[in-house]
């Protein structure tokens, strides 16, 4: 039987301290939920690497190539003499390339964001509505009651306003 321990704090510093202590005590998959982005999480929970920049880069690259391919390819598919210009006209096609580079870059960034942050997620997950208002929440999964007790003690020591237990494994 697993459940999650959830501690509510009213300032980011004590939430971070608590998270650090939990981690030190061997708890894993810690999460901090907060109404605002908090700085200094990385020092406590370890560095995060995001894959988004790879998505952005690849998207932009694909966009650039397909932009030029679109303009040049359609021009060749039906050669359409216009204004005495070559069929593949560089300056205008580079503008199309530029725009599609950005368009694909943007779309890929969004895709990267969704994939790397596991959104959209409409299933039930550990969540404390107060964390969207003004509470900083530390949560960790616990294997059994004894485990939970230990976590509760740590959180209370760190100054939690409230400690709750949420859900079983189905959460």
């Amino acid at each position, binding site marked *: 039987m697993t459940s999650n321990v959830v501690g509510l704090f*009213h300032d980011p510093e004590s939430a971070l301290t608590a998270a650090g202590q939990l981690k030190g005590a061997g708890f894993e998959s810690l999460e901090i939920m907060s109404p605002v982005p908090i700085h200094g999480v990385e020092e406590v929970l370890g560095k995060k690497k995001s894959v988004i920049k790879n998505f952005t880069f690849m998207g932009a690259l694909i966009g650039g190539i397909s932009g030029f391919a679109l303009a040049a390819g359609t021009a060749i598919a039906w050669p359409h003499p216009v204004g005495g*210009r070559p069929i593949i006209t560089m300056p205008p096609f580079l503008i199309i390339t530029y725009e*599609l580079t*950005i*368009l694909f870059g943007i779309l890929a960034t969004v895709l990267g964001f969704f994939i790397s942050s596991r959104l959209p997620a409409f299933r039930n997950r550990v969540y404390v509505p107060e964390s969207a*208002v003004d509470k900083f929440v530390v949560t960790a999964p616990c294997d059994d009651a004894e485990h939970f007790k230990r976590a509760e003690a740590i959180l209370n020591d760190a100054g939690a306003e409230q400690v709750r237990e949420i859900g079983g494994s189905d959460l």
Partner: protein
Amino acid sequence: MHRPMTTETFKLGYNDIHDDVIRSIVKTGPKYYIALATAGGTTLLCFFFPWFYQLYYGIGAAGMNHPGVWGTYLASFIFWIGLSHSGTLLSCVLHLTNSSWRKAMYRSAEAMTLFSLVVAATYVMVHVGRPWFIHWAVPYPNQMELWPNFRSPLMFDVMAIATYITGSTIFIYMGSIPDFAAVRDRTSGWRNTMYTLLSLGWRGTDKEWHRLHWAYTFLAVLIIPLAVSVHSIVSWDFAMSIVPSLHQTIFAPYFVVGAIYSGTAGIVTVMFVLRKSMGFEQYITKLHFDNLGKLLLVLSLIWTYINGVELFTAWYSGTSEEYEALNYKLFGYYSWLYWEMIIFCAVLPMLMFSTRFRTSFVPMLILSIAINIGMYTERFLIIATSLSRQYLPDAWGTYVPSPVEISIMLGSFALFTTLFLVFVKIFPSVSMYEVKETMATPKMEPAAPAAGSPA
């Protein structure tokens, strides 16, 4: 990173912000409905009705004629594209430079971008002669194997504006996800369903914040060059022609500066209205007006300079057609509009050198509206004066807008207002999490039961 914006907002706790913003969404007074009905009715009457009339009878319902084949429709199109140029662009720049004063206003500024773009896109349909075939300008595989002509500046427009609409929609949406989540928890019924879907199950975990931050930053990096390119491309619709006084290399920077200029003035207007009508006095403060005023002043100086350069190059070229175009612009049929534009966009903004002017709300509102009137005139003049005086004197003529055009122009403002009114009831029009972030501590009153916490 907790930098106070002003001592005024300092008085608020996280909770108060939360309540204020959510109240602005769910509490809807009769005033709102009256406003919405008025705006919606005006849109129908002044925008859609004349437009349908024009669709039925042909574009002749507008005042365009032989040399003046482009008219206020295109001027309005540029105007709305220009107005869109401050929201998202400014927001991106301020995000990257980490300026905290943007936070209270950027959501509505971005909404302005989005809706201006929607209105501008509608104007494309109003402008063309056969809007029912407008899809031919979109590259899609078809049976006839006919593709659009990618060499055309108008085609650049299609691509750029499609990208820009996509980009700014995504940008405003990404920035609102945490706020949607916050609203989700406080609402019930259909609103709850809507916000649950919109917030995508956001929980505000450290990981989500981290990803959002990076995604947002990359979007900002992509959108800045995009916004600059969009208005450059709009200017190329003109500059790529060989019409005297349109065929100018300075047009791209000129249009970009003009766009940001009128967009910033538009933000001042919208901020003023939002502040008064939604009770956001605590969030939108003198500081914002002061900063926006400084920005406007700088932009006005650049704009004036470029305008001077344009006149000088035309005069210095010494060719008869440029001379005639210049002469016509300064002293011809539309000259009173030209001087009006100079007064509204170059002379009056000098008032903003005074700090007292910048920090007083009503004068700033009046000035911002004057600037936008001037900027609309600028766009109109660029088209009307240049087309009236081209190479062959036999084909000279004047263009005067028809009542249908004027009605559609006024109606477009009602359309914008309607869209904006719908927006304020769906999106939290002040970014909650970012305003919260700028404040010192989550809770100001220590009187709240702190459950014996040492902190």
